[in-house]
């Protein structure tokens, strides 16, 4: 096994964790140029990324973009058509799932219906390849049963459990084996909304406590934003952006990421702006420094929170920045206002109810729009 | 596992292939293959006994198919509107008709029809004072058709019930909502929905009846069906004509089954 230079670099530069180097060898994961084809269809296209040991990473993207395939490539249920996969620095792309130090929580949970809760959890510890002495199995399984609040359910049939309990059994069955990486494929999909919040907190605490690398697929961007250290955004088999939740929200690298993570008002330019400035419906914006080298700007946009409404006279941009209110939606402490703007189409504004308290906007009102220059994002792709 | 599956495949098809090949063999004895010829087909089907048996089998299979498709469709639809108990009883009896081995059905039909015939003949003789009554009934096509209709109907009920389970109950409500009464709904929604299954069930009934041996062996009387005729001939040894007859039978059943299964799949695809 050989660790790629950039992998070491990534490990060394990463702040904050004293055992980072050791963890990197332990539970990090690396994809290098991984492509997976099913027949002529390319499900995953030239994927390269690093996952830091001990981190909580989410993979998000629209349905069919290759998230599950990526997980299955890590777990060993699919093998790359091209490229390599490293776990803890060792190449594993030729290894079968049962040889990899990884465990998975299946979307369906895949609990064995012919075994009770205890035997399901003990399944991995009793495998021929990884057999532990009976006393150890008993101790470890009982410990995890306690930790996962399944005490008293040891000898229940798994199909008699509630959805939340089944999910905890699936988690317990995986982590009892001390995997280097735990993989979760849409673990919340089968839970109802209220339970989901609680489980998200539990999952986060569990990950902190165990220090195991978690890689989770979800199509729920809020879930990804609230749980993860890093998020991998995929689209059509490719990576759009990798970053912390803050980076993705505040510095989306592409139109796709901007629209996918949170709400976004996107303004496509009629013709790409190659110079140092962009003309958006009568407003001239300077292209920011960090985008300058990337080519022509093709779109700009801003978050709904950045859009301010006022009944007063227009700001910069004049009449083009006037719009009619088409919907007003109260969301408890916030209010969302949908607008029809002659120059920019449909826009969304969001503001604290408190801030708007003195002014009641109604459907049909005409308002003036204000966005700070610095709130505009510029996109070259 | 792949290799073993391939081996099983060969095991299933090789003996049949040998028969087919040798049925086209020009050589007078079967020790070697000397060239293609249809002479054994000509010979087999110029034999009046073979032709009579073939005709017999086709007529019986057609009648069984028609009878069992009609009764089976009616039963399958009727089962939708009965109590749970009736449904379970009827379905179990139908299953019994499929599961009881042919030999038992065959001999039971033999004794039952004998008893029924002699009872009926005595009644006719007594009531009409007709001495000739003893020859009124005999075993033949009707008895085979009746006995075959049992397992064929059971099969049709099974196939159509399977299809009816895919019928979305809200279609019936939608039909009622759109002013069609119950009878009209049955005719305009349910029946069209099960037509592919009816065709498939009828064709499979034809095949099963056409190929059936042991029941026909008991109740065909002096008029053998093709399988019974073939069995009697095989006991006298393998001949090239038998290869030709066997090949013809296999061809007929394979063709009809393929069509039947394509109807089953078509029904499936549209659901």
């Amino acid at each position, binding site marked *: 096994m050989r660790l790629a230079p950039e992998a070491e670099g990534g490990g060394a530069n990463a702040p904050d964790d004293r055992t980072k180097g050791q963890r990197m060898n332990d539970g990090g994961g690396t994809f290098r140029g991984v492509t997976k084809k099913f027949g002529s269809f390319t499900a995953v296209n030239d994927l390269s990324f690093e996952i830091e040991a001990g981190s909580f990473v989410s993979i998000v993207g629209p349905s069919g973009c290759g998230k599950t395939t990526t997980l299955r490539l890590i*777990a*060993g249920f699919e093998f790359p058509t091209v490229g390599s996969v490293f776990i803890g620095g060792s190449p594993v792309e030729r290894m079968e799932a*049962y040889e990899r130090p*990884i*465990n*998975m929580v*299946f979307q369906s949970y895949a*609990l*064995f219906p*012919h075994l009770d809760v205890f035997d399901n959890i003990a399944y*991995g510890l009793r*495998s*021929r*390849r990884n057999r532990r002495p009976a006393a150890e199995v008993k101790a470890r399984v009982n410990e995890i049963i306690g930790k996962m609040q399944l005490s008293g359910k040891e000898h229940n049939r798994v*199909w008699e459990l509630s959805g939340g309990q089944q999910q905890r059994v699936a988690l317990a069955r*995986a982590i009892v*084996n001390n995997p280097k990486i735990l993989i979760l494929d849409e673990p919340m999909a089968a839970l109802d909304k209220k339970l989901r919040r609680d489980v998200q907190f539990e999952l986060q605490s569990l990950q902190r406590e165990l220090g195991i690398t978690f890689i989770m697929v979800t199509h729920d961007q809020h879930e990804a934003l609230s749980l993860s250290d890093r998020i991998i955004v995929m689209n059509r088999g490719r990576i759009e952006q990798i970053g912390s939740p803050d980076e993705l929200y505040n510095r989306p690298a592409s139109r796709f990421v901007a629209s996918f993570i949170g709400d976004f008002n996107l303004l496509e330019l009629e013709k790409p702006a190659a110079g140092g400035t962009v003309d958006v419906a009568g407003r001239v914006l300077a292209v920011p420094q960090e985008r300058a080298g990337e080519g022509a700007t093709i779109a700009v946009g801003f978050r709904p929170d950045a859009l301010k409404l006022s009944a007063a006279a227009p700001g910069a941009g004049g009449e083009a920045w006037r719009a009619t209110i088409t919907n007003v939606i109260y969301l408890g402490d916030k209010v969302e206002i949908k607008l029809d703007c002659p120059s920019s189409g449909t826009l969304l504004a969001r503001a604290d109810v408190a801030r708007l308290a003195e002014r009641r906007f109604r459907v049909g009102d005409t308002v003036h729009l204000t966005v700070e220059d610095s709130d505009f994002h510029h996109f070259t792709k | 596992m792949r290799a*073993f*599956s391939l081996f*099983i*495949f060969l095991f*299933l098809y090789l*003996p*049949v292939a040998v*028969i087919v090949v040798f049925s086209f063999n020009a050589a007078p*004895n079967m020790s070697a293959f000397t060239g293609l010829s249809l002479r054994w087909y000509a010979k087999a089907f110029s034999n009046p006994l073979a032709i009579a048996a073939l005709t017999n089998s086709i007529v019986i299979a057609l009648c069984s198919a028609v009878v069992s498709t009609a*009764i089976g469709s009616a039963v399958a*639809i*009727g089962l*939708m509107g*009965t109590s749970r108990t009736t449904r379970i009883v009827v379905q179990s009896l*139908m299953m*019994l*008709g499929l*599961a*009881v*081995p*042919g*030999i*038992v059905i065959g*001999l*039971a*039909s033999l*004794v*039952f029809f004998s*008893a029924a015939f002699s009872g009926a003949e005595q009644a006719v003789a007594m009531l009409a004072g007709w001495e000739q009554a003893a020859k009124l009934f005999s075993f033949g096509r009707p008895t085979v058709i009746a006995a075959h209709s*049992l397992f064929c109907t059971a099969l049709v*009920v099974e196939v159509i019930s399977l299809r009816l389970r895919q019928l979305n109950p809200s279609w019936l409500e939608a039909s009622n909502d759109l002013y069609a009464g*119950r009878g009209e709904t049955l005719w305009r929604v349910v029946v069209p929905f099960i037509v592919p299954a009816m065709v498939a069930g009828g064709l499979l009934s034809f095949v099963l009846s056409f*190929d059936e041996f*042991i029941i026909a062996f*008991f109740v065909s009387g002096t008029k053998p069906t093709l*399988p019974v005729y*073939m*069995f009697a001939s095989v*006991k006298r040894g*393998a001949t090239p004509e038998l290869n030709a007859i*066997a090949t013809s*039978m*296999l061809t007929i059943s394979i063709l009809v089954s393929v069509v039947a299964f394509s109807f089953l799949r078509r029904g499936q695809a549209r659901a």
Partner: protein
Amino acid sequence: MLQPRMARLLLLPGYALLALTLIGPLITTLVISLGRRAPSGGYETALSIENFASVLSRSTAFLNTVQLSAFGAAICILAAIPVAFFIAKHLKGSVRYTVLFLVVLPFFTSFVARTYAWYFALGGRGLPAVLEWIGLGRFRFLNTDFAVAIGIIYAYLPIAILMLFVAFDRIGDDLLEASNDLGRGKVETFFSVVIPLAMPGLISTYSLLFILLSGEYLIPMLLGGGKVYFIGNAIVDLFLQSRNWPLGSAVAISLMSMMIVVAFLSQIFQRMANRDGRIG
């Protein structure tokens, strides 16, 4: 949705058919089995269980049938398992159903013609001639237990594969992957997940094969030359040769009883093995 009166009307022809071809015949057989053979053959009214006592004199046929059926069913299952598993878990899409169709197709072709194929293949001009030509010596296959066993496996393999396919197909791929994920390889997974979950299907397949095989007549007759004696042969002899209908009926009733017992036991075992909480 259907009016009860309409439903009853639709069921009427079904009742008539069942009465005429199933219930009537089975009851008649039961009545006749309690009667006596008329001097010229056939049936004479009586009420005794004498015939059932003489069934015991046919115990060799029973024993033979039970042995060969139990053995044949076991071989069938063993041969069917890898094929059914291969089709259910390794083939995908349309290939899968085409292969399944091709495996099951022989079941819908003439039983007599297929058995005749083996009669031809195992007969003097078939396999023995080939083996002698290769120089392996002289062999005789026809009229042996071996030929009957081959014929039985050949005839019932398709239905065994079909039934086991259904049993394996119901086991989700995710369970097999979960087992792999937890460190168990293919063989270990097969025995710790697939077999336990398919157990009800295995039991019902075995008992159905056993029942079908024990009613077999054609195969022992053609490939066993009547030397391999099944209950089926006994029944045909009693009915069509010695015309002892009462004894023949008693043998048939005994055979049916045995089958019912097997079906019943199979239900019990299936329920015991049905540990995943699903029915069947």
